Structure formats: C-alpha cells, structure tokens
C-alpha cells in the first residue's frame, strides 16, 4: 500500500514531464479476473463489452463516494487517455484530499444502515444516537481504519452514545438498542449475521432443519453479551432521556453464582439447558461473570477478528456493494447450506484481505479494477442465462442494473444541480435525513425490522416527479443550475448536451436532440423553460436512477 502510494507519487511527478506513467496493477486483480473468466469459459458465456468510459466513471463515483460525478469531474477523467486512467481515477477518489470527506461520509452512511438500519435512532423510544454512530464511522473510514479493528471496536465498545457528552464513544450505538430486551437476543443475531455471515435468529427457539447452528450455539454465543447493559442518562431534573451509556457489569448468571455465570434456555419440549460463552469454533472462555476475571465482549471481539468468517464476510459484502450481488444470496448468509457462486475466489480474497491487514481501500482497488467491474450492462445473447434476479448464481458477465440507493440519489441530485442551499454540515445532514425518512416503513416488531418504499414503486416516482428536491433541481432561479448552464454554454445544443452529460454521462442521441427542439417550440422559444422540461425528464429516467 505504501509502496503503491509512492509509485503514484512518482507517477504524478513524471506526469508533468512526459506523460502519466501507468501504475502497477495489484496482483489480486489478475486473480479475480482469472477466476471469473474461468467460469465464463465453463458456461460458454461471452461477457458484455466494457462499459463506455464515461458510464464507468459515473459508476465508480457512485460506488466509491456515493454520488455521480459533476460534469467537470467527468471531463477531467475523459481527458486522461493514457493507459492506467481508470486506476488513476480510483486512486483519486480514495486518496485525494478533495474527496476524503465524501468518501468517509458515504461509507459511514452505508455502514450505519447495516448496523442500525435506516430507522435506528430516528424515534423517541430508541437509545441509539444516529449522529454518534455516524461520527464514529466517518472517523473510522476517514482514517482508513483496518476493517478488523472497526469490528472489534463495534463489538467491544463501552461509553456514551451522544457526541459531546463525557465518555462519548460512537461505536456503542451499534449495540445500545440490542442488549436490554430479551436477554440480548438481538445483539446475538445481529453480531453473528453482520460480521460473520451466520444467520442464527431462528435457532434462538429451536434447532433449524436447514441451518447447522443448533439452539445450543445460539445461547452459547448469546452468553458473551450478558455482562452488558444499556443505561439511560436523563436530562438533570427531568424524566427526559438525554443519552445512553453502554456498560459492562459483573454478571451473576442465572444460577446466581458469578464464579460460574451460566445462563439457561428452554428447548421446545420444555427441558431447560445451560449455556456458557462458547464461540462458533467451539473455543470456550472462562466461565466467570466477574469483569475483573473475564471481559466477555472483549473475548468475543478477539475471537471474531480471528475468525475466517470475518474475512469472507468483509469480501462478500464489499463485492456485493460494487457488483450488485455477492457470492452468496443473501449476502450475509455464509452458512454451509448456502453455496457460494465462486467459492474459490471468495476463499482467495478472504485470505488476501487478512494478509493485507484488512485494508478497506485496497479491497476497493482490487474490485473496482477487476474485469467484471469494467463490463457494460448489455446482454450479449450468450450471457442471457446470467440473470441472478431469477435465482441463477451470478456469473458477473455483465453489469447488473440496480437502482441507486435513496442516499445516492439524494447526493447525486444535490451535486448534479446544487439542489439544496449550502449550510452547516449539521443542517445539511438534518435535511438529508428528513428527506430519507419519508421512505422508511417499520414492521412493528421488537427487532426494529423495516422496509423502504424507495424501491422503484409509486411513492418514489411521485417524489421524483413532483418532490421538492426535483423542484429545486429544475428551478429557473438566478444562480441556479440551469441558469448557470445557460451562462456557461454558448448554444442551445451545447446546453442540452451539458444536461445529458451531467445526468447520464453521455451525449444526447439524434432523436433526443429533436425532442429538445420540439420542446423549445412548445415553450414558445423560452429556452430556460425547455431546459427545465428536459432536465426533469432526465432525472426521472431509469437511466438516471440506475447504477449501470
């Protein structure tokens, strides 16, 4: 990694003199390609051609920093025609100061949704502090903290949820709402699913026919969380909760003997069995409930970061983030019943991330530079069978179209047209969160399950048709995006082209230019009105809202 940076640095120095030198391709990229291509040969699939460079540029911006490129950024990339340009773009997004904040913000958003859901910390009953969670994650991604370190901190954190209060530790927000109710069942199932890819929620009550985890395993794992409590801290002199604190306490166990702090659970036939903290690989830790002797969560954190499942889960999640599908479906189920589409590649990458100290940015490099990530979304005929949406294991022989997330769409609209007025970070974040909340629907369970209506259905279409964000984006106010386009570009045709490049990373086709001129006539020659209509059509199109 450092060597690599040095190379880039050298490359940049040289660029001034001769031409941008080509940085070295990480060897992992070649391995990925070999493995993916082997499967294409096995299935006699001809992959899609590479995506047009501008489309690829848009893709990388969306996946790495969570928004589409501005036209200026797009042009900057298009002008770099020297070999290694794609690699240079990835480097820029990962390492350039200009993108540090957006990079960290994007990945913090992605991870907050994984760790506490979109609704976590949004209602009054929740102890979770979303700002605290985001702050922790932003810092972690800004400093490119190794993934295993981040997981360890999330699992073992103690302290207060809210930024600014004494003992603040944002990492506690992952578990703060998951330990008090129902003997920390939620902490058990979330921790094992998110970090180890083991789906155990069903085994809480019974042995599951399709799942190797038995009920005993569930409660063994659960026992690691039983020293942990979430405590409410009130605004002085009132009953209002100010924040919460995640603490470890001595645990007496359910037989009331802290030296042998066991827990009980019940089989379906009514028999009661005992459980102690035992990890999934059968490693047992001390049975004492005294913190001075055993800190159970710290033990768990250590066991998790040493588990090969941690590596696989990191790889699988990241791969799915960029390619649309993981090696398994669902992405967080790595159980033995769920065969991976590319088991060897998953294994290989898992080994590599561990050798590479779980460096997140390096993994991003490997994936974004690999062959499957370069492909267009085209169906070629022979890759027609490669359709994971009908349950086929993915072959990654074309890019799978997918909708932007609500967060990506918001950021993209804001960037594409400066749709919201600037303001402090807090104010912008508040606006963004308010906007995002309209799509979240809760299911009414104690587990805080939720769904999103930002799923291509009517409420989303209505929002893009008529919502405030669109209204602002297509506004004809002075200093607004469209007015600026008019000022900066010379001819109507240039202006139309500018809109297509900004929104869709391509030039308009002939029929699209012709529709623009019809619109101009229909608007009685009022060009800004025509641009409003056209910009509206562009940001409502599937081509805009899809990652492709």
């Amino acid at each position, binding site marked *: 990694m450092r060597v690599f940076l040095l190379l880039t640095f050298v490359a940049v120095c040289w660029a001034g003199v001769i031409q941008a030198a080509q940085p070295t391709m990480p060897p992992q990229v070649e391995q990925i390609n070999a493995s993916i291509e082997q499967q294409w040969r096995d299935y006699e699939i001809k992959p899609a051609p590479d995506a047009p460079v501008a489309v690829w540029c848009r893709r990388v911006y969306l996946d790495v920093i969570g928004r589409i490129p501005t036209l200026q950024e797009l042009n900057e990339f298009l002008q770099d025609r020297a070999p290694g340009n794609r690699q240079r773009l990835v480097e820029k997004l990962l390492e350039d100061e200009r993108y540090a904040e957006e990079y960290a913000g994007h990945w913090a958003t992605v991870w907050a949704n994984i760790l506490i859901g979109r609704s976590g910390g949004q209602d009054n009953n929740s102890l979770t502090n979303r700002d605290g969670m985001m702050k922790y994650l932003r810092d972690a991604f800004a400093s490119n903290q190794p993934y295993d370190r981040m997981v360890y901190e999330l699992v073992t954190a103690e302290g207060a949820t809210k930024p600014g209060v004494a003992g603040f530790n944002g990492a506690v927000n992952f578990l703060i709402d998951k330990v008090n*109710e*129902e003997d920390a069942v939620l902490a058990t199932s979330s921790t094992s699913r998110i970090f180890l890819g083991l789906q155990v*929620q*069903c085994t809480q*009550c*019974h042995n599951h026919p399709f799942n190797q985890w038995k009920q005993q395993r569930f409660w063994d794992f659960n026992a690691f969380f039983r020293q942990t409590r979430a405590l409410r801290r009130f605004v002085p002199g009132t009953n209002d909760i100010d924040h919460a604190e995640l603490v470890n306490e001595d645990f007496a166990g359910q037989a009331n003997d802290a030296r042998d702090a066991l827990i009980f659970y019940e089989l379906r036939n009514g028999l009661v069995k005992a459980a102690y903290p035992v990890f999934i690989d059968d490693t047992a830790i001390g049975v004492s409930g005294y913190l001075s002797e055993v800190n159970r969560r710290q033990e768990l954190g250590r066991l998790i970061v040493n588990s090969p499942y941690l590596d696989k889960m990191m790889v699988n999640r990241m791969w799915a983030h960029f390619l649309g599908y993981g090696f398994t*479906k*669902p992405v967080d189920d790595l159980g033995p019943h769920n065969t991976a589409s590319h088991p060897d590649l998953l294994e290989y990458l898992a080994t590599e991330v561990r050798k590479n100290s779980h460096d997140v940015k390096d993994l991003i490099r490997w994936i974004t530079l690999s062959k499957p990530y370069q492909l267009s979304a*085209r*169906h070629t*005929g022979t890759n027609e069978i490669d*359709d994971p*949406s*009908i*349950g086929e294991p993915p072959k990654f022989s074309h890019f799978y*179209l*997918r*909708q932007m997330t609500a967060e990506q769409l918001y950021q993209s609209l804001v960037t594409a047209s400066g749709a919201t007025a600037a303001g402090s970070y807090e104010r912008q974040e508040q606006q963004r969160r308010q906007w995002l909340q*309209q799509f979240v*629907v*809760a*299911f*009414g*369970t*104690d*587990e805080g*399950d*939720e*769904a999103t*209506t930002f*799923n*291509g*259905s*009517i*409420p989303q*279409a*209505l*929002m893009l*048709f*008529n*919502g405030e964000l669109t*209204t602002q984006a297509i506004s004809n106010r002075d200093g607004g995006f469209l007015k600026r386009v008019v000022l900066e570009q010379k001819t109507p045709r240039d202006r139309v082209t500018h809109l297509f490049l900004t929104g*869709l990373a391509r030039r308009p*086709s002939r*029929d*699209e230019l012709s*529709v623009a001129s*019809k*619109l101009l006539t*229909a608007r009685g020659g009022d060009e800004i009105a025509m641009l409003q*209509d*056209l910009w509206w*059509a562009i940001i*409502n*199109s*599937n*081509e805009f*809202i*899809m990652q*492709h």
Partner: protein
Amino acid sequence: MSPTAFRTPAGMTRRHFNMHLAGSAAMASTAFSFGNAIAANAEELRKNRKSAILLWMGGGPSTIDLWDLKPGAPTGGPFRPIGTTGNAQISEHLPMLAQQMHHLSVVRSMSTREADHNRGRYYMHTGFVPNPSIEHPSYGSVIAHELFAQRPELQIPPFVSVGGAGAGPGFLGMAWAPFSVTSNGRIRNLDMKIDDKRLMQRVAALELIENNFVKQTRPGAAGLGSPAAEHQKVLRKTLDLMTSDQMQAFKVEQEPTEVKERYGTTGFGQGCLLARRLVEAGVPFVEVDLGGWDNHSDIFNTLSNRKLPEMDRAMSALVEDLAQRELLQDTAIIWMGEFGRTPRINQDAGRDHWARSWSIVAGGGGLRGGLAIGETSSDGTEVLSEPYSSEDLMATVCKGLGISLDTTYTSKNGRPMKIAGGGKVIQELLA
C-alpha cells in the same frame, strides 16, 4: 416516443391523454389494452366486484389471549372469555367486536413452522418459505392482479398498504407492488404544479430517454421484466394516479367526525376507515397494519390497556360499516399476524414466538361468519383438529372471491407456481 404529445388538442383531459400515450408506446401493459372494450360493462362488473382487506398484526399477536382463551390453564393468562353474536367466545377486552362476530369466524387450528419475524411475515404473506432464488408475490399482489380485470375504471393502485410496508409483488413486477400510505391517507408529492399539456410533453421526452436505455441494455428482447422496463410501468401508474379524481378516496379527513370517532382516532382506526373508502372506490386489495404485538414482556397490560381497545374499536367499526353498506358479502376480511405467541408465560410476564398452534379471523367476501373452526388442546400447545396453513387460508379466501385455484403463474425462471401455493380450501369457512 409519442410525437402526439406536441400537438395535443385543447381540452383533452389528462386521463385521456394518458391512455393515448399508453396505447402508442411500445410498453403498453395488458391492463391498459382492454380499456374501452370493457368500459361498457363497468356497471355490470361493479355489482360483482370483490375485494379483500388484510388486517396485518405485525409482531405476532397473542391469539391465545384474544380468540382461543384457556381460562384456568396454568399458562392461560388472566383474561376471561365472553360470549359473542357468533359461536366463538373471545377475550373480554374485545367487547365491541363481540357484537360483530356473527360476521366473522375464528380459525383456531392454524399450525405453521416459521417463528422468526421475517420468515413468518414472508410465509404468511405469500404461502411460501423464503428462498434466495425466487421472490414470491404476496397475496395482496396476487389478488390485486386477479381482480384488476373487474375494474377497467380503476385509476388508483389496486393494492394499497396503509400504515405499513405491505409485502412485495415478487416476480409479478413493481407495477403490482403495494402503494404504501400513512393511515391519514396523506400522499406526498402529488401536485405537479404545471399544466397538463406541459406535463405530457415532459413525459414524452422522458419516455424517449427510457426507451433508448432499455434498448441499449437489452437489444433484441423487449427488455420485459428488466428493472429498466419495470420502471416504465410504474411511471405509467404514477401518471394515472396523479391525474385521477379517484384520489378523493384517500381523503379520510372528509369523513364526518362521528364516523372518525366510531373507528377511533388512532392510526389503526383511521387506517380501517381509509380501507373502507378504498374498497368503495374499487381497490381490490387493502392491507392495514397494526404493529406492536411482539410482546415479550408485560403482555397483559399492553394488550388490555393499549392494543386491544384500539383494535376492538377500529375492527368492529369496519365490519359493521361494511355490513351496513352491503359491501361485506363482497369484501373478505382477514385478520392475522406472522404467528401466535407461546402458551406459556415467560419470566418477564410476556409471551414469545409460537407458530405451532394459533388463530386467525376471517369473514365477509364469500366466507362464513359466526363460526369457531378447529380446536387446540386444553393448554393451547397442540392443534387437535385438522391443522391449517397459510396456503389453506389463502386458497379459501381466493375461492370466496371467485378466483380460480387453477390459476398458475410462471416465475421468471420458468417455474410454474400455483396460486395460493396449492393450499386446500377450509370447507367449513366457505359460504
């Protein structure tokens, strides 16, 4: 694309225009193609049109404390049964509903296997267990899909989910997704604020860009079923809805105060009232969600003070109102959650998840009321009579609504899928 958009005759209505566009565009769905041909029969159809309302109790309600009480059993809980206008005795905390039970039947012999929220929700909504390789359509999407043909005049979505997320359309496609609204019926972002003609011109430009994109990603094939093509169908429905007078049905606040109070000024109360209005407007499937049944602790206080009064008022009003308006015989009502709760009280005075023996309630829409169907053991832990599943219930509801059980869909990967998962009809429940 449709060049007509640029020479619209004055006075052409949005709706008309819309139909016109849909006809000219390559992606017109079948739903639109038989528009006018059937319009003449609209009145005839209206008489026979069927609907269903699903009252979804998110979290898994404790049916042993509501519909199948075990007074005196060690784990029966403190609630007493009371008599009703039907055969079933129900909880003392549902006194208003007790007066409507001649319209509803309790099925006490549900026995399922999914006791996890997500899996249970999926199974009870689809009749299938989750399978990573296929997304099954939910009952709401299926019934909306099947009954839509009876309603050529319907311009609002045929599947509305009130106060919740509903469950997805699976391989039927996003055009059959639930339209989620809050229980007050307020819909965001409805108003476009430009005139019809300009809207249609914008839509024409949009359509062109969309079609180019579909062609580009899938040359040759029409791109049906791809996310890009699905988006076009949803846009069409959105336009329909934006321009329709039928949107009045969502304005639940226009109801007289005494009606609103009869249903209860709660989320669920207003949601049930909205459901009635939507059914009247011709919506074939409405789901109303009431969450908060995941009572792992302090269950009896929660039920008697909060959940049951809210539900009792709203559900009884809905049944009574539909019956008075002579809509009940054509409107099936299904009350259920993802599972029941343990016939055992835990150390936190709560009950946990339990799928092996529990109850649902159904009536109206070709189903018989007033019955208590099936039986559980004296402690509630076993079903003694014939056990029924999600598929069985769905098959019965479909039959009651006149939907053929031979209806078969083909999933995207070519697998045939029988409606209601091939469940067997609960004969007793059928009118």
